[in-house]
């Protein structure tokens, strides 16, 4: 039997069902989550103890011995109605994210699938916890809902491959109380082809690919993976980054080799790199020389499984004084490590380092616009999770040039006032 705080009982049932054990006896208790108070633990367990004994001794029911899973009624056509009715139907089914959706009609989904040469029934991956089949068609349905364009499909397919890679430890980050959000960095020629913002306000709303790709991935995680808020996705506070956290690296204005080349891809490849931060800290440097920039970055304690978002002008200053990405990484992690270790809550063997996670696993991405701010996006891992950044190559369909030409001018044109 499994003992969990009352707030995790539904989650435990979903987890057991996804592991083929739908009748696992789950007992809710009232101990404060991750409690460090002996009295609290004592009173919670005293209250639950008779039920614990009963859960281990009460004879099994027929259903517990030989469980029958309910066959889900999942017709391909979900609904017919007008715009408002479709939106309300999807919202009530728990298939949305709170914002209006574009109705995924047969025609819209077919058009979305023009963004790939893969057949509609091709299973790109099975997504946990439900092990839902991420077919090209299901990815396209969710992409339409999010307002994505067919030219975004190649990025989404690569992103689905990335989250399904066990190295991401998506199984933990997707559903964890820590409210981690997928952060996607796109590199290579596709950035320009589909106009992903790498400059000013790249992570703010206002650019279709930056917004729709992340939104679509969030819907895919929910509707294909089955991670629903408060049931399987147990993020305690939640994270607005789950709406979308997507940008491109500004390769043209970076003095260093781009992220994907650093990670073993060719410059002409297009890639998506993913990890799951839950803290975004922005700061300005104490001085705009190399030391001022680096010491200030170190003050935010970047460490393993963090991303350093550096604006092109800072990168240029550092490069002009001989700083490579590797030297920057080494310097800021060494300086920042002591403070970081002091403030980290201890769980499990936090000092252990996984052989899968190199000590230099600090991602450096050049992006952002005018100004003097830098950012550190913090995740966790290495020692206790064995996770790492994951990059996947983005495969383009044969009709790529014609497809991108259709959306060539689809960019915001702000009028000066």
């Amino acid at each position, binding site marked *: 039997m499994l003992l969990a705080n009352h707030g995790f009982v539904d989650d435990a049932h979903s987890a057991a069902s996804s592991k083929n054990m739908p009748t696992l006896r789950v007992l809710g208790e009232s101990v404060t989550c991750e409690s460090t108070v002996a009295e609290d633990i004592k009173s919670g367990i005293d209250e639950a103890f008779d039920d614990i004994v009963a859960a281990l001794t009460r004879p099994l029911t027929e259903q517990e011995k030989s469980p029958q899973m309910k066959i889900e009624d999942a017709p391909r056509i979900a609904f017919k109605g007008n715009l408002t009715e479709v939106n309300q139907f999807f919202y009530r089914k728990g298939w949305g994210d709170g914002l209006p959706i574009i109705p995924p009609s047969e025609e819209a989904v077919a058009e979305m699938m023009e963004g790939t040469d893969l057949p509609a029934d091709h299973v790109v991956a099975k997504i946990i916890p439900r092990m839902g089949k991420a077919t090209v068609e299901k990815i396209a349905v969710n992409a339409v809902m999010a307002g994505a364009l067919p030219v975004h499909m190649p990025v989404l397919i690569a992103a689905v491959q990335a989250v399904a890679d066990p190295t991401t430890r998506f199984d933990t980050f997707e559903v964890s109380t820590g409210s981690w959000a997928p952060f996607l960095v796109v590199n290579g020629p596709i950035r320009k082809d589909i106009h992903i913002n790498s400059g000013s306000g790249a992570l703010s709303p206002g650019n279709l690919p930056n917004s729709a790709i992340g939104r679509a991935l969030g819907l895919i995680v929910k509707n294909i993976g089955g991670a629903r808020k408060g049931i399987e996705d147990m993020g305690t506070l939640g994270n607005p980054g789950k709406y979308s956290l997507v940008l491109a690296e500004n390769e043209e204005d970076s003095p260093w080799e781009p992220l994907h080349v650093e990670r073993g891809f060719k410059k002409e490849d297009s890639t998506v790199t993913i990890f799951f931060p839950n803290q975004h800290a922005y700061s300005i440097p104490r001085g705009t020389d190399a030391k001022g920039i680096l010491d200030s970055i170190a003050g935010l304690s970047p460490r393993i499984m963090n991303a350093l978002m550096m604006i092109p002008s800072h990168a240029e200053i550092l490069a002009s004084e001989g700083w490579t990405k590797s030297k920057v990484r080494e310097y800021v992690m060494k300086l920042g490590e002591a403070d970081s270790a002091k403030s980290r809550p201890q769980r499990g063997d936090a000092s252990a380092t996984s052989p899968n996670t190199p000590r230099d696993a600090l991602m450096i991405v050049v992006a952002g616009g005018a100004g003097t701010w830098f950012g550190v996006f913090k995740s966790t891992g290495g*020692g206790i999770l064995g996770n790492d950044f994951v990059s996947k190559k983005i495969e383009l369909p044969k009709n790529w040039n014609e497809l991108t030409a259709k959306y060539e001018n689809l960019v915001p044109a702000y009028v000066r006032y």
Partner: protein
Amino acid sequence: MRKILFIAAMGIFAFMAIYVISDAFFAKDASEYQYEVLSPWAEVDPITPRGISPRVDTLAGKKIGLFVNMKRAARPIQAYVEKKLKERFPDCQTSYFDAPSQKYLADNQEKYAAWAKEMDAVITAVGD
């Protein structure tokens, strides 16, 4: 007079045309157009569910496994459960399995299975 009638007729015609066009192109789009939409909810492979292990009739004299995950409350919860078990069933035995990380558990499935097989019953505490 004919001129006035002609202008009036043209006015009525124009009004009706605008009404029909707006009905066809605007009102219908906004509230009448019917969308037949595909489901975003994924299919899963059929699975054969497993039943849970038979229960013991009493915990007296039994070997009770206490599984502890990585979260910090799991161990003290189980320590208190153990104390309560020994108070109520003095001759029961307990055995811990500590999974200090999720990776550890994934890498030690055989060790875990061998431990669980030795137990008459197992209580899992996840610390949340």
